[in-house]
């Protein structure tokens, strides 16, 4: 059972009557109401075009909702000004399907980069980056360049970067999409371990086997609507 269910519900993400229609006329989300509490691990599943990407973009404030209100980490995204978006993003860690590591920086610098953005001192950076890299099992590869790492290792660097600032929320957009099944299992295990320490995890995935193996809450989207929300995972 997730840590969240042992605590008093305390929403970190809240969607109230949220709809999103793109300029092209595509209705991506219709009247979505959902609440995700602090400390939860949530899988977001659905077929292509179900609205998963839009759901994540709205949380990261890459897109704005047409109607409804969205609260993330205490920020009201409907009213959040563009110049304050960086403040919102500093409260979350993002893991991408395509890793998005800077090819000209070594592993240590790729992770440290996220800490420089928040103005951490060089001493804190050294300490925290080493800790994050050890946590993902890459302490010995700090000086390697991204192109010297396997896909799974690159994704673990991405994960270290996402958690190095100790965010309350980690958003993982298909983090296992570009790695082999064994490594996928390892990455979700790692995310679960991070979740056990109290960090909320929101993970989009297509991999139903993973969802079945890890018994976390599952939100299923279809045609822009939430069609299932199973607290106990997928059977």
């Amino acid at each position, binding site marked *: 059972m997730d840590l969240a269910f042992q605590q008093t519900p305390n929403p970190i993400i809240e969607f109230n009557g949220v709809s999103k229609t793109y300029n092209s006329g595509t209705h991506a989300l219709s009247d979505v109401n959902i609440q995700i509490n602090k400390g939860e691990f949530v899988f977001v599943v659905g077929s292509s075009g179900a609205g998963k990407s839009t759901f994540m973009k709205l949380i*990261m404030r890459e897109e704005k909702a047409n109607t409804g209100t969205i609260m993330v980490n205490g920020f009201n995204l409907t009213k959040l000004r563009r110049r304050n978006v*960086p403040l919102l993003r500093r409260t979350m860690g993002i893991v*991408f399907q395509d890793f998005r590591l800077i090819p000209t920086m070594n592993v240590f610098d790729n992770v440290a980069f996220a800490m*420089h953005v928040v103005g951490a001192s060089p001493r804190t950076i050294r300490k925290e980056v080493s800790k994050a890299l050890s946590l993902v099992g890459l302490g010995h590869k700090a000086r390697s360049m991204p192109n010297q790492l396997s896909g799974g290792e690159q994704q673990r660097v991405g994960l270290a970067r996402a958690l190095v600032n100790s965010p309350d929320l980690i958003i993982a957009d298909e983090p296992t999409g570009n790695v082999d099944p064994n490594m996928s299992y390892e990455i979700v295990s790692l995310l679960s371990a991070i979740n056990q320490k109290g960090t909320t995890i929101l993970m989009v995935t297509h991999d139903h086997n993973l969802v079945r193996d890890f018994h976390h809450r599952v939100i299923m989207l279809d045609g822009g609507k939430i069609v299932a929300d199973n607290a106990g995972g997928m059977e």
Partner: protein
Amino acid sequence: MKFSSMRYLTKEGFKNVWVNRLMTFASIGVLVACMVLIGLALLVSFNIDLALGNLEKQNVVMVFFNDKNSVIYADENPVSADKLTDDMYLVHNEQEAMAVIAEIEKIENVENNVEYISKEKALEVLKVSVLAGKEQYFEFLDEEGGNPLSDGAKVTLSSMENFEETVDKIAAVKGVDSIQSQAELANTINSIKKGVSVAGTWIIGILLFISLLIVSNTIRVTMYNRKLQISIMKAVGATDAFIRIPFVVEGIIIGIISALLSECLVYFCYRVALDTIMGTLGTSQVVPFGEAAWLLLGIFAAIGVLAGVFGSVIMIGKYLRREGSEFSAL
């Protein structure tokens, strides 16, 4: 922004210069090519100015007064000496000549060193220059009333601009009979100056435009290569200023390196050109590089740094408005 962040971003800017060295070299190459052309165009223009300035210094107008001899030896309707009366001419003595000179000096574009030349002095000059060795044939010039020359003045004009207008004003002064000037030379110099100025402005303007165009394109390619870096910066919560600073630092470094390289190249090209010109024409009247060096360096640094910084800031602005998912679609 914290000091440690500024130090990190400045360091990143320096690092980017080397990490993206291919684009750095391309940008420096383009900037240097344009700045060398601009520098050489400026030096050519400075030298033309100097040459014309030297010609202008020789710009002396001879003014002859309306005295006794100017009436006796007039080209049209001369009056014989025995029929000449004092009221037939205006300048009777040196004092009156000096009064005319004072009037001439009041005219704009006339320098205040108008020199009075008496007909006796003019004859002495003539004897030394033109009549040297033939004095026995011209002894009559020394007899009473034998000197046919008029009293006059040597007038120097400040510039060749408005030459004809100034000469007309001098001619209109009461007591002036005639003027001997190099009007044709003045007109030629004026038209050359105007031509050089117009052509110089166009050439430098076009070169500046081309440099900005190429530099902005080079930066656009650089930015395109770094869209990933910008998207990651945004995803981890970097502010626009935080993202911009390394690019601005990089722009400044590229600008300064380009300026220094251009200065060296222009110096080298100028030396080679001067050696060739001096060897063939034997002229020494050229602008020494040292005189223009700081001005050129200043212009190069300004062009380089402005092109680098503005190019970065303008081009990056376009990418700053995009979000991470839009980058993957680019």
